[in-house]
């Protein structure tokens, strides 16, 4: 992946030299041209086309922003409701993610969306303990975390 980015930047610099123009705009055009070239030639490279991952990262960011807004609305409703009718609890969320890096990312994303706060890990790093402000249905919540964040993270890392 790093090699491909380097290649892409190299192509952009060659483009700038050919155009005799060293402005950032020209660099961007060169970068896009290089990207297209890499995409066309992806079958002759021994590795995956790296931009697929970049798209997955962008998807993850947008998913996260969307969840952030939705969850904030939920918490606003809870805070402003006249009777504090909540059922807080700690839930063990199992995860299929393997490396420390991925689990950390998942825990941070869970923490950043309001209403849920990751509190602790099990020793083998396979379970995250999540404190939730309102647990009407435990299974539904675990499923939701699996379907949104975990899936998106897996797309990035594989």
């Amino acid at each position, binding site marked *: 992946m790093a090699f491909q980015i380097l290649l892409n930047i190299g192509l952009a610099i060659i483009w700038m030299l050919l155009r005799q123009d060293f402005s950032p705009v020209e660099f961007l055009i060169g970068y896009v041209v290089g990207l297209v070239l890499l995409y066309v030639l992806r079958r002759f490279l021994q590795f995956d086309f790296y931009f697929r991952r970049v798209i997955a990262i962008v998807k993850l960011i947008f998913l996260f922003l969307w969840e*952030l807004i939705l969850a*904030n609305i939920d*918490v*606003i409703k809870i*805070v*402003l409701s006249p009777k*504090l009718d*909540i*059922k*807080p*609890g*700690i*839930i*063990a969320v199992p995860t299929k993610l393997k490396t420390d890096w991925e689990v950390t990312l998942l*825990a*941070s*994303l869970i*923490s*950043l*969306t*309001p*209403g849920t*706060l*990751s*509190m*602790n890990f*099990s*020793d083998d790093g396979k*379970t995250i*303990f999540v*404190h939730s*402000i309102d*647990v009407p249905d*435990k299974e539904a919540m675990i499923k939701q975390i699996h379907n949104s964040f975990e899936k998106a993270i897996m797309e990035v890392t594989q």
Partner: protein
Amino acid sequence: MTEIIISILILLGGFLSLLGAIGIVRFPDVYGRLHAATKSATLGVISIMLAVFLYFQFIEGVFSGKVLLTIVFVFLTAPVAGFMIARSAYNVGVELSDKSVQDDLKKAINKKGKKARS
């Protein structure tokens, strides 16, 4: 037009920070209060920062990278801080509020303790 967007963002940020403060007062236990303190306030700070960035970009005409970095660092530090405070509170033995319906962590710790003793 840009001024309207900036005003909306600043008002939103102020509103969210206010909600965070209300939440700190109203929630029953440490963990609930952490939710209010770390999350609503984070989004509040971020929307104010976004407004500052837009103001400098479109009205003063200055690109201010520092403000964008602030957003990144708030995003990086808020979950870590919340995680550490919640974890140390639990390890020190702060009780969950009596409204709580579930405590999987306690079960896990008890199980582990039994294994260690036997």
